[in-house]
């Protein structure tokens, strides 16, 4: 495939177009991803998540700049929310990444989540595959501003960095399930503000209370002032150590297995739905929906009915 070939040769326009293709989805996207798959597996995939305004973009830019100084190349995917009403989006993460402009060792792509919950877009995993195949050493994925349930990034990344800010919530927030449990690294950003030490203490206390299945990795709690570049080196080095830990402990294979399983599930969901839709005429589809609305058919039975139709035709 031409696009795959151009991308693998380092053509940046081809890379950008490939990202558009996988974001749009469909058979062409799958052909491309199949062609690229053999070239993946090299990048360290790092997720960065945290509440809106916690400093995700600034931290991502600072980490990227740090790794550029050590000669590593960086791909960045920055996800922002789509409006549920208009399908439009304003993607503003590049504003905080201006300092990386003009560096050919960095490629930044903004992505709207297009209505998907969980903190990343449907195509974020595929976009990571494309950047990995293009040869970037580190792929940083910045999630949408996350609350407590946007934990999907952990299934898509090797290392997950969760950013907190001083004074965000009391002790009980820290022991709730969810986003803190997915952290491989915890960063208290804006650490020049009041309450930073207390937040660090609370997070450490939470980690020591929690019975986390870490097998030898306790998430470090680090501080940063990302706008001034303070604390970045320690965060970068902890992320690198986490990758070493994953490899040496054999957990890397486990993470890869989780990632692959998640990918397979997502792809299966999508392709199964496409096949069903291809088998069913729009009028039959509408008729089933009308029956559900009229309460003469329940949606589970309707789904079974559709699946039976597809698999009895293609299976036999």
């Amino acid at each position, binding site marked *: 495939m031409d696009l795959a070939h151009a991308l693998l040769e380092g053509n*940046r*326009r081809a890379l*950008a*177009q490939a*990202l*558009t293709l996988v*974001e*749009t*989805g*469909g058979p062409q996207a799958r052909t491309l991803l199949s062609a690229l798959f053999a070239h993946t597996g090299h990048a360290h995939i790092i997720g960065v998540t945290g509440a809106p305004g916690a400093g995700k973009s600034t931290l991502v830019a600072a980490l990227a700049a740090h790794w550029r100084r050590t000669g590593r190349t960086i791909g960045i995917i920055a996800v922002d929310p*789509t*409006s549920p009403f*208009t*399908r*439009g*989006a*304003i*993607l*503003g993460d*590049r*504003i905080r990444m*201006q300092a990386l*402009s*003009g560096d050919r060792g960095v*490629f*930044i*792509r*903004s992505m*709207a989540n297009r209505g998907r919950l969980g903190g990343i877009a449907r195509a974020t995993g595929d976009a990571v595959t494309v950047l990995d195949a293009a040869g970037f050493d580190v792929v940083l994925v910045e999630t949408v501003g996350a609350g407590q349930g946007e934990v999907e990034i952990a299934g898509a990344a090797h290392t997950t960095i969760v950013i907190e800010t001083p004074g965000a919530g009391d002790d009980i927030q820290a022991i709730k399930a969810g986003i803190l449990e997915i952290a491989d690294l915890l960063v208290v950003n804006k650490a020049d503000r009041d309450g930073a030490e207390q937040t660090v203490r609370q997070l450490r206390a939470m980690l020591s209370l929690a019975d986390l299945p870490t097998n030898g990795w306790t998430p470090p709690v680090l501080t940063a002032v990302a706008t001034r570049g303070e604390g970045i080196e320690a965060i970068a080095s902890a992320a690198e150590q986490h990758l070493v830990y994953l490899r040496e402990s054999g957990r890397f294979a486990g993470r890869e297995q989780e990632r692959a399983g998640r990918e397979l599930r997502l792809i299966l969901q999508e392709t199964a739905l496409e096949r069903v839709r291809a088998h069913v005429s729009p009028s039959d589809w509408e008729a089933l929906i009308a029956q559900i609305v009229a309460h003469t058919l329940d949606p589970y039975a309707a789904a079974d009915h559709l699946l039976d139709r597809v698999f009895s035709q293609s299976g036999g």
Partner: protein
Amino acid sequence: MDRPIRVLIAKPGLDGHDRGAKVIARALRDAGMEVIYTGIQQTPQMIVEAALQEDVDVIGLSILSGAHMTLLPRVMELLRDHGMHDVLVVAGGIISDEDARILKEQHGIAEVYGPGASTHEIVRFIQERYETRT
């Protein structure tokens, strides 16, 4: 395939007045487009690089500094250098009729909007250009 129109909104040059650019960004979002907002003080190189990475369909340039006759042709030249002929470029700001005519006829800017332009007009122009897109 049905996908949203992607637009890059950028402010070339040194003026820091980004209110107009933000109003346009919002109007385009409300019309269902994905708007990449890059902020103020962008060089033509930064704008074209961002447009390339983001694979946008449209670039909207807001410029109030008076430097439009140097900066906008430079953006168009860099786009051509990168083979990005298919990107629609529109500009807005304080631009005289004569300058607007030259930017359109000689440099390939698709449309130039002055201070009185309505956001509806701009949204409609972009949508009409892309309705015929395959």
